[in-house]
Every structure is written in structure tokens, then in C-alpha cells.
């Protein structure tokens, strides 16, 4: 009998901290994460970002697959895991080794929620992400479906094929398909909260109230962490390259 290898068994042994936010589109998590980054930098901490679906090499294939509608639930899942693996190896772990606070907008839970909503086996996708480091802090932005839908649909009416879950054939109408797909994803997220002990945030609260709460959540993890060298605290990567 072999031991089941699955996500959650690779603790973070490095000096850095990994903080991730999760939630459906329109939950406001990205706003919260960038406000957190600003504050952490102002406090003198080393901060790096890692975004979902951003590995330079893999992204071209993902984009092509999406554009030409080549992706099935299985290949959608695998290409995103490929992208994520590249970022773990080349971005996240090296930055954690270097003692940075790594902020990730979406993490493995996005895959668990989205892929399972597409019909992928829950156990299989959790095993797939075995190589992922467990975050120091994971926050789920909980928002009523209607609120999130209103935020998204009032701002950006053109939904992309996979984003709207059109590949699932839930509805021929992209907006209706999107609603049903997001609703399925939300059900999965709600199951992930107790399964992985995610911290939850009431994403209907005012932005600044949520931000204060997020800062309180991260504070206990900041005591033993290195500060950025003086003078570089406000400098972003782009500025350094310029």
C-alpha cells in the first residue's frame, strides 16, 4: 500500500511567507491584495507577486487553447497546473528562499474549485497539485453570488468562452452560463474552506474595513521576517529595470 500523495503535504520550510487570496470573480480579492502589498512595502518588507496563469512559456499555449477552444476539462486543468508548476519552481520557491513575502492572487484552490466545477475528479486534481507549497496564510473572499455577478456584469459585459464556462454547455447564453458556472465554483469554494482551514473574509464589508482585517491576519507572521534594505522599500521591479 502506497501513501496517497496529495496537496497539503509540502510545508513551507523557507524564511519567506506565502500569502494567497481566493474567491470568485468580483469578490474584490485583487484590490485587497494590492492594498496589502502597498502597506507591506511601506512597512519595509520585501514583497513579490505571483499571478495565476502567468508563466511566460506556458501562457502562449493556454491562450492559444482558449482562443481556438481546444481545451477540455482535462487539458484545461493540466495546462494550468503546468503554468502553476513553472511559477512554483521559478518564482515562488526562490522568492520564499530569499525571505520575501510572496503574494499570490489565486492559488491551487482556484484549480480545485474551477476544475471540479468542470467535472474533474476532486481527488485527482488535489493529487495533481502535490508539489505546491502550503501557504502561510490563505484568505477566501466570501461574497453573495448576486453581488459578485453585479460587480462583474455591470463593468464588463463581454465574457470569454471559458471564463463563462461555455465549454460545459450549461446555457447557450454567455451571461446565464457564467452565472451557473460561478455558482458551481462557489459551492466548491465553500467546501474548500473547512477542508483546508482557509480564513474567510466578508467581502461585502467596506474595502478599508476588509483591508484592516487582512492586515491583522498577516501581522502575526511578520515578526520573524527580514526587512528590505533601506531605500529600496518603495522600489518596484519595473523601476529597478528602468
Amino acid at each position, binding site marked *: 500500500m*502506497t*501513501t*496517497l*500523495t496529495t496537496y497539503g503535504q509540502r510545508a513551507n520550510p523557507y524564511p519567506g511567507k506565502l500569502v494567497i487570496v481566493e474567491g470568485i470573480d468580483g469578490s474584490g480579492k485583487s484590490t485587497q491584495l494590492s492594498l496589502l502589498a502597498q502597506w507591506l512595502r511601506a512597512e519595509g518588507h520585501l514583497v513579490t507577486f505571483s499571478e495565476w496563469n502567468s*508563466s*511566460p*512559456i*506556458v501562457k*502562449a*499555449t493556454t491562450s*492559444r*487553447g482558449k482562443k481556438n477552444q*481546444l*481545451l*477540455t*476539462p*482535462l*487539458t484545461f486543468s*493540466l*495546462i494550468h*497546473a*503546468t*503554468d502553476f*508548476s*513553472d511559477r*512554483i*519552481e*521559478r518564482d515562488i520557491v526562490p522568492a520564499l528562499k530569499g525571505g520575501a513575502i510572496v503574494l499570490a492572487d489565486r492559488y491551487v484552490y482556484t484549480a480545485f474549485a474551477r476544475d471540479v466545477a*468542470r*467535472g*474533474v*475528479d476532486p*481527488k*485527482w486534481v488535489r*493529487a*495533481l497539485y*502535490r*508539489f505546491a507549497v502550503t501557504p502561510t496564510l490563505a484568505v477566501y473572499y466570501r461574497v453573495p453570488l448576486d453581488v459578485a455577478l453585479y460587480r462583474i456584469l455591470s463593468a464588463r459585459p463581454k465574457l470569454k468562452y471559458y471564463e463563462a464556462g461555455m465549454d460545459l454547455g450549461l446555457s447557450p447564453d454567455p451571461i446565464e452560463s457564467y452565472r451557473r458556472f460561478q455558482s458551481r465554483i462557489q459551492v466548491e469554494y465553500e467546501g474548500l474552506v473547512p477542508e483546508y482551514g482557509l480564513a474567510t473574509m466578508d467581502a461585502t464589508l467596506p474595502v478599508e474595513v476588509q483591508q484592516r482585517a487582512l492586515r491583522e491576519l498577516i501581522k502575526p507572521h511578520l515578526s520573524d521576517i527580514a526587512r528590505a534594505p533601506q531605500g529600496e522599500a518603495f522600489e518596484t521591479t519595473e523601476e529597478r529595470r528602468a
Partner: protein
Amino acid sequence: MKRFESYGQGVPGLELGDLSGWLIVVEGPDGVGRTTHVNRLRAHLEQLGYAVAETGLTRSDLASRGIRRAKQGNTLGSNAFNLFYATDFADRLEQQIVPALRAGFVMITDRYIYSLIARAIVRGAEPDWIKQVYSFALLPDAVFYLRIEAAQLVPRVLAEGPFDYWESGMDIPMGEDLHDSFVNYQGRIIHELDALAREYGFHTLDATREVDDIADELCASVTHLLMKRPASLTT
């Protein structure tokens, strides 16, 4: 009862009930002569009146271009490469292998999940993990493993040109030059394939024999299998 089964949970949304045909795998290290034997087998089966389709690593519509690009710069993480290959395989399973089986073809695949599992393990992947990743794959009807020692591959590979960077495992260099790394790397791959051969019950063919002898044995074994096992269990 279904004609085909998956190792694990299978492909999401894929009904296996309507699959027929046969799935034949030819496995073996780089330079062992797989292409020659796949071609010979294909010609033999077509002569007998079977419809034959073929696939092989990195031939997917979705991922072949990306993998080629990633190889050029060697700029992709090692585990990401494992998963990129898995993406390529999944796309070929869904878009090439399954449709061919549904149409009652003999699908010959030049390497299958086993070579991919072997190359991942050699690059440090946990064996249990990578096998779980590939658990959506279909169990083939038979796996023919062209078995050889790494040192015996050297003249065969050199006859075709200089050592290839990837076939020599130079992304994880295993020697001070391409020759040494090739021998060590292919040796590790063969070691893993040997273990998989025992685990999954490959039909091992001694690839040091004359090409004609190997081809005869392969063709006879496959023909026997095709006659013994009907394409579809329902007809």
C-alpha cells in the same frame, strides 16, 4: 462490460462504453528503433485490412508548439515540463486516440505514459505522484518494450547524427559531455522502464536482435492479439 478501462477515474466527461478498436503501445528508449518497428507494424496490419492510426510524444495540436519553444530555450521548470508533457498526452488521448478507437482503428502509439513517467522520475518526480497524474490514461491492449542497454544505443544514435541535447538529459547533466550524459541518462530511463515493465506487464522484445526478427515477432504478436480479442465486446 466495457472494451476499455482507465487506470483511475478516467477522462472527465468521457464515456468509454462506445470505444472499440485496439490500443497498441511501442515503448523503448531514444534510438532503439521504435519508428522503424511502428512503420513495419503499420504496413503489416494494413496489409491484413486493418485501419491503423498512429500517435507519439509531442504530436498534440494543443501543446506541441509550446513544448518545442520551451525546449529551445530550456527556460521551463523541470516539473513544469513533466506537466507540459502530460498536457500534450491528454490532448492526444482525447483528440487522437479516443476518436480512432471509437472508429474501430488499431491505434499504435510510439511511446505512451510509461516513457513520460520514466523521464519524470529521472528528473526527480515522486513515482506515486506522476503515476496518479497519468491515471486518466486508458489501459492499452498490449505494450511492446524494445529493450536494450544504454551503451548499445550509442552507435545507433551516432549513425543518425550528433547526440541530441534532450536525449542526453543535458537539462539535468549526468556527465561531463554529451556522450557520458547520454549513456548515464538513457541508462536511468531504461532502469525505470524495466521497473515499469514488471509493474505493468510489458511484452519485452530484445532489441539487440536483427531488425527483421524483431519486426516478425512484433507483427505476429499483434496479429494474434487482434484475432483473439474482438474490436468491440458488443458486436
